[in-house]
């Protein structure tokens, strides 16, 4: 370790168990942490995503297996759980995309203020959750 690194003071004034549950995060903060959470979820479920791609695109037979997973499930996993996982992926993708576009927009527009940060965060949440509800309703066969 360098001398500078040794001397650097460490402040740990946030306790995950004591402070986080009562900490009121601003909307932009929620968008930020959910951006991470959704990214990590998609990273961990990457094999599921590729499996869905594989079965849906490889052959007629695999496509019918792909469809049956949403109707009767796969192995010990019931269809509703498959749909729930896919719904989680849909939300993750939409949130990550909306928050990401917001990020790129803020990167290219240097004059970002508090109002814009708040408003764009609200738009991100409304848009991603709204689209998730619409696509989720379709997924669960509500229309």
């Amino acid at each position, binding site marked *: 370790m360098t001398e500078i690194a040794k001397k650097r003071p460490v402040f740990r004034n946030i306790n995950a168990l004591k402070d986080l549950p009562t900490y009121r995060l601003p909307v932009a903060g929620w968008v930020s942490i959910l951006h991470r959470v959704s*990214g990590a979820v998609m990273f961990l479920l990457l094999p599921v995503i590729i499996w869905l*791609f594989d079965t849906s695109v490889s052959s007629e037979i695999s496509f019918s297996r792909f469809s049956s997973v949403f109707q009767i499930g796969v192995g010990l996993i019931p269809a509703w759980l498959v749909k729930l996982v896919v719904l989680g992926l849909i939300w993750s993708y939409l949130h990550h995309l909306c928050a990401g576009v917001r990020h*790129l927009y803020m990167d290219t527009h240097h004059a970002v203020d508090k109002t814009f940060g708040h408003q764009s965060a609200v738009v991100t949440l409304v848009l991603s959750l709204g689209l998730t509800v619409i696509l989720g309703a379709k997924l669960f066969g509500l229309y």
Partner: protein
Amino acid sequence: MSVNFGSKRIVVGAHYGLRDWLAQRVTAAIMALFTLLLLAQVILTKGDIGYDKWAGIFSSQWMKAITFTVILSLAYHAWVGMRDIWMDYVQPVGIRLVLQIFTLVWLIACMGWAIQVLWRL
């Protein structure tokens, strides 16, 4: 301060993370554009989408090339993002290294699978 090499090297400073920062944004833009492209093809397809039409979207050579680029972009993007998460939340260097290696292996394995699926179409 005079010694700045070996174990005394100062490893913080300007530009160290610029390449990854930029790569993360460029790959994000590529994936966002791909989403629009795929969405457009699904929407412009007439009638119900069965196996033929769905697989047909990915069967053309240009779509394969673009999808291939997106698979690589996704891996790079996810690597930068996951590395950020490990660096922020995991302090012990040993555990962090193990998690970073896991991330790389996971991403490379997934990439191989996705490319295999894509190119046997």
